[in-house]
């Protein structure tokens, strides 16, 4: 089974159709997705800015992360749940969206950055916990995190626009390649 036929099967499920065609449910889920993004990104950004030495310089780095992490994790969980439902409502179009694909790639990069930070930088936090401006490695992790999450927000927002959609041909060959779109099969 190809990914495309899998997502076509998903999109034909009754509750995917119901969600897509619902009057309020889809909008409410999308709102929850945006609001939890604000909670998650806002607090992550404050932590990243602390790593960059741009705010809360007198608060230990470890205290900022330990106190804010339960909130960012909770926000992230709700975002993944609401985001999955949004995908479930419109699976084929999302799967073939160049912005959705960019966003998933960026999420992988964000996860990689978090993993590197927690395995390489954070174990040495005792050495720079109270520094107003943390060392280079920590600042790089903070700057990367901020940049990646901003890019996630931008690509996420653009999923709503259909400029490169498979059913809008002709598209450049590169776009159709990147979106796994076969223009001959695309419904016009």
């Amino acid at each position, binding site marked *: 089974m190809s990914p495309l036929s899998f997502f076509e099967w998903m999109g034909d499920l009754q509750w995917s159709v119901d969600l897509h065609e619902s009057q309020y449910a889809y909008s409410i889920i999308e709102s929850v997705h*945006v609001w939890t*993004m604000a909670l998650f990104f*806002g607090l992550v*950004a*404050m932590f990243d800015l602390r790593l960059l030495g741009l*705010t809360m310089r007198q608060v230990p780095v470890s205290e900022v992360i330990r106190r804010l992490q339960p909130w960012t994790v909770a926000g992230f969980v709700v975002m993944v749940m609401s985001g999955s439902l949004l995908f479930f409502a419109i699976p084929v179009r999302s799967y073939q969206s160049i912005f959705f694909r960019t966003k998933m790639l960026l999420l992988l990069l964000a996860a990689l950055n978090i993993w590197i930070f927690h395995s390489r930088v954070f174990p040495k936090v005792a050495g720079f916990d109270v520094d107003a401006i943390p060392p280079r490695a920590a600042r790089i992790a903070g700057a990367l995190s901020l940049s990646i999450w901003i890019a996630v*927000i931008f690509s996420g927002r653009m999923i709503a626009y259909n400029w490169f959609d498979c059913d809008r041909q002709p598209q450049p060959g590169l776009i159709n390649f990147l979106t796994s779109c076969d223009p001959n099969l695309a419904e016009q």
Partner: protein
Amino acid sequence: MDLLPYFQWCYDSTLGETIRESTWLFPVIEAFHLLGLGLTMGAILLVDLRLLGVGLSKQPVAQLSAGAEPWLLGSLALMFASGIPLFMSEAIKCYYSFPFWVKMTSLLLALVFTFTFRRYATRSGLAADRPRLGRAIAVVSLCLWFGVAWGGRWIGFS
């Protein structure tokens, strides 16, 4: 007082028209607006969580509030710089949109509350001395900003 002529003027402005006629401008400005939303929420939440006794609860309220303020002001500047052009491009739709008026009313109340009472209470030590008052301030602040976020999101659905 009928505001419609002012909304019409915004709609007819060169800026409004340029954004309307462009494919990319509205979405890109909108993405900056979302970025501003996140940053504003972060700067607000940092202090409100503290007032609720969670988050950075070991830190003095006044110090957190003072530290968050430049980022609050900066992110609000980004919100206005992106929000006003978005508004101008669809001012007439906004005029007839219920969520738009909810958003503007909440925004006005939120700004006044944040930069008068909340600012005074967090800086003067009043909120720190009276935790119940501090919690009440956080609840009012979060409700008002949620009104702004609700209205903002639902302008797009109407």
